[in-house]
């Protein structure tokens, strides 16, 4: 609908545009360049502004909101340091293809380029980490620019889009008109897949003996989980998922092989090594998945479906590329699949690998284990909670032990690996989704990186479950130091300078508990999951030197997995 209206100033146009885009929340932090917007925000009651305590937190919150809901997350920060503080969050959203729109205040147009107070060339800084970015120099272009920004963020391969708003443009007046159509000459994402390519893919899959679906975050983003489940179950083709793809097929499904790659399951990686047709759907052959690319799925005919043509042949050369939206292509592929391959032998083989080498962890010494905590959380929530991981060992244990049974439940920083992501992203997810428990799980390293956002959670009384896995180490770095750097634990031991987390968190007005006893885990989890008055915190003090296995060393073939540590010197 074209909206013609009366004369408004830039700051009013800003909110009118956000209303038309259906924005519910703005994650923001005020500053000099935004004063007019914050003045007008005072009278806006249908869009809620969430005051963060650091702009990085705002970007992660917007991303958590976007990933949990499928909507576009919105950030509003001031010029200069406000803008530069968003950079890590923007890069994170770019790597994980999350749709967020970042509005940055900017100095008045006549001062741009003069090294004015709180000026930063945020356009130049964020060009490599945004899908696109705009500087609005004229109030007459404001509405159409915001329209384009949301359109670009949510269509095609989603991603972050930044709009820089000079202070004087927010004060300037023009007639408000919201454009009906978006005109961007160079932007035409391919949605429908090439019919002949799809027919060819169907022919290959029909005659496969050992087909394997390798699915990534693209399935979640295009809302194609139902199509995937139908396709896999109809033709009895096993499915292995990337970290971002977890939940695409319920973990409890017999066809689900869990995650593949560096810390993937033994049976998933064996299936990749032995499959004859590999069907990659919305996955990008990341180096954490493929290991040494020359030895990745060498026996397989590779089909690759992706909306982004640059993902194809970037890391691994494929035999049959199909560019388009995976949801459309899966539907068409299902129509073309008039017969199913016979996969019973193949499924039996995979089952044997599963029994040969299950996921196991140490239990006999009585120490508390992260794997046990995750298993308990998984059981108690029935695999239906939104679990927002931070980065490190616990992130991989979540991927291995939490049974994600639906899409949009697994949220973590996969591409960039940003420590400090979990707490703010979980807050954003909790604003977006009220009918499921939202759980933030961090290590003691990452938790400190955005700990200030505890205020945001406490102030808004969001019923977030905050679980800290504390081994007083930067665990994953320590693991690599043990395995590959002669046990030089250089600056990864945090035991002497970690704070008393229970006291710290309690000072934010959040109920806080701690345990190192496996027997107390169940009760504390029940308490946390039942508490809905606001955020609640539990610290789990776990065994200090456990390692995540299986593991494929960086750059090795995924057939060269380390299964477990027998003793520090012997790897099997």
């Amino acid at each position, binding site marked *: 609908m074209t909206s013609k209206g009366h004369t408004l100033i830039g700051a009013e146009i800003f909110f009118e545009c956000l209303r038309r885009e259906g924005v519910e929340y703005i994650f923001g932090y005020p500053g000099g360049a935004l004063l007019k917007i914050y003045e007008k925000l005072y009278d806006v009651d249908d869009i809620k502004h969430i005051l963060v305590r650091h702009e990085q937190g705002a970007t992660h919150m917007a991303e958590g909101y976007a990933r949990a809901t499928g909507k576009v997350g919105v950030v509003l920060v001031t010029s200069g340091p406000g803008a530069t503080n968003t950079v890590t969050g923007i890069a994170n959203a770019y790597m994980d293809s999350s749709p967020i729109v970042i509005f940055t205040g900017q100095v008045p147009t006549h001062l741009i380029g003069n090294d004015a107070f709180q000026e930063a060339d945020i356009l130049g800084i964020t060009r490599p980490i945004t899908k696109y970015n705009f500087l609005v120099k004229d109030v007459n272009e404001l509405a159409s620019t915001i329209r384009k920004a949301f359109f670009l963020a949510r*269509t095609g391969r989603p991603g972050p889009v930044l709009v820089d708003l000079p202070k004087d443009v927010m004060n300037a007046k023009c007639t408000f008109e919201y454009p009906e159509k978006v005109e961007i000459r*160079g932007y035409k994402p391919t949605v429908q897949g090439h019919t002949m390519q799809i027919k060819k893919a169907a022919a290959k899959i029909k005659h496969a003996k050992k087909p394997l679906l390798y699915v990534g975050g693209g399935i979640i983003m295009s809302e194609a989980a139902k199509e995937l489940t139908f396709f896999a179950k109809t033709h009895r083709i096993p499915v292995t998922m990337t970290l971002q793809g977890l939940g695409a097929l319920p973990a409890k499904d017999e066809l689900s092989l869990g995650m593949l790659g560096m810390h993937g399951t033994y049976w998933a990686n064996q299936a990749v090594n032995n499959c004859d047709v590999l069907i990659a759907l919305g996955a990008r052959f990341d180096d954490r998945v493929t290991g040494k690319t020359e030895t990745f799925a060498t026996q397989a005919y590779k089909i690759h479906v992706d909306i982004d*043509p*640059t993902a194809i042949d970037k890391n691994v050369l494929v035999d049959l590329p199909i560019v388009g939206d995976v949801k459309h292509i899966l539907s068409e592929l299902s129509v073309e699949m008039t017969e199913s391959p016979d996969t019973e032998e193949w499924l039996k083989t995979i089952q044997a690998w599963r029994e040969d080498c299950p996921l196991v962890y140490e239990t006999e010494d009585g120490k508390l284990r992260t794997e046990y905590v995750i298993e308990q959380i998984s059981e108690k929530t029935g695999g239906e909670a939104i679990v927002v991981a931070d980065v490190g060992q616990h992130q991989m244990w979540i991927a291995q032990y939490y049974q994600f049974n639906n899409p949009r439940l697994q949220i973590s920083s996969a591409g960039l690996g940003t420590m400090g992501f979990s707490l703010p992203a979980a807050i954003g997810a909790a604003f977006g989704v009220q009918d499921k428990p939202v759980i933030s799980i961090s290590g003691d390293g990452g938790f400190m990186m955005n700990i200030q956002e505890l205020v945001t959670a406490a102030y808004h009384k969001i019923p977030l479950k905050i679980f800290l896995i504390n081994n007083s180490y930067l665990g994953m770095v320590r693991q690599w130091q043990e395995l590959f750097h002669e046990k030089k634990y250089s600056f990864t031991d945090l035991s002497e300078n970690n704070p008393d987390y229970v006291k710290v968190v309690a000072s934010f007005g959040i109920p806080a508990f701690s345990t190192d006893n496996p027997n107390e885990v169940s009760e504390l989890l029940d308490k946390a999951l039942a508490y809905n008055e606001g955020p609640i915190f539990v610290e789990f003090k776990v065994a200090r030197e456990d390692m995540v296995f299986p593991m494929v060393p960086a750059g090795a073939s995924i057939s060269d997995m380390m299964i477990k540590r027998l003793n520090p010197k012997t790897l099997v």
Partner: protein
Amino acid sequence: MKHTISVLVENKFGALNRVAAMFSARGFNLESISIGETEDPEISRMTIVTEGDEQILGQIVKQLNRLIDTIKVLDLTGALTVERELALITVFYQKSNRSELIGLCDIFKANVVDITQKTFTLEIVGPPEKIDSAINILIPFGIKEMARSGVVALSRGEQLNRHKKGSSEVLAI
């Protein structure tokens, strides 16, 4: 192998930066890049000379296409094209070799655009190979300084003239 790629982009600030930054961020070789407005003032044409094997070239073309400002990408390598580059070269001369230098200018169809007691400034237009050989010939005289424009290229005939304003893509939600 060397490739010449022609890219039509929206004539906006930042477009050149986005293309150049894509090359540096992804480690692609960028031998020369030239840009200027086309017959449609809203569109600029970039001519890029780069080097790489088939897989790298495929990625370069796809990555260029992926940029929002990009309207069309064409790999002109192997196609019938006109390629030109402009060079301005200032060379030292002496009385004894001045006529030899003027003779060389005739051979290369170079124009003398400036002259002093000690130097000539020559303007040479042609395919990059012609400029290269002219430079090689001029080196013994002593080159004071020079500037090359980078290649501009067009395919021969009517193939590329389809991007008038009327054909802009309109996307509705």
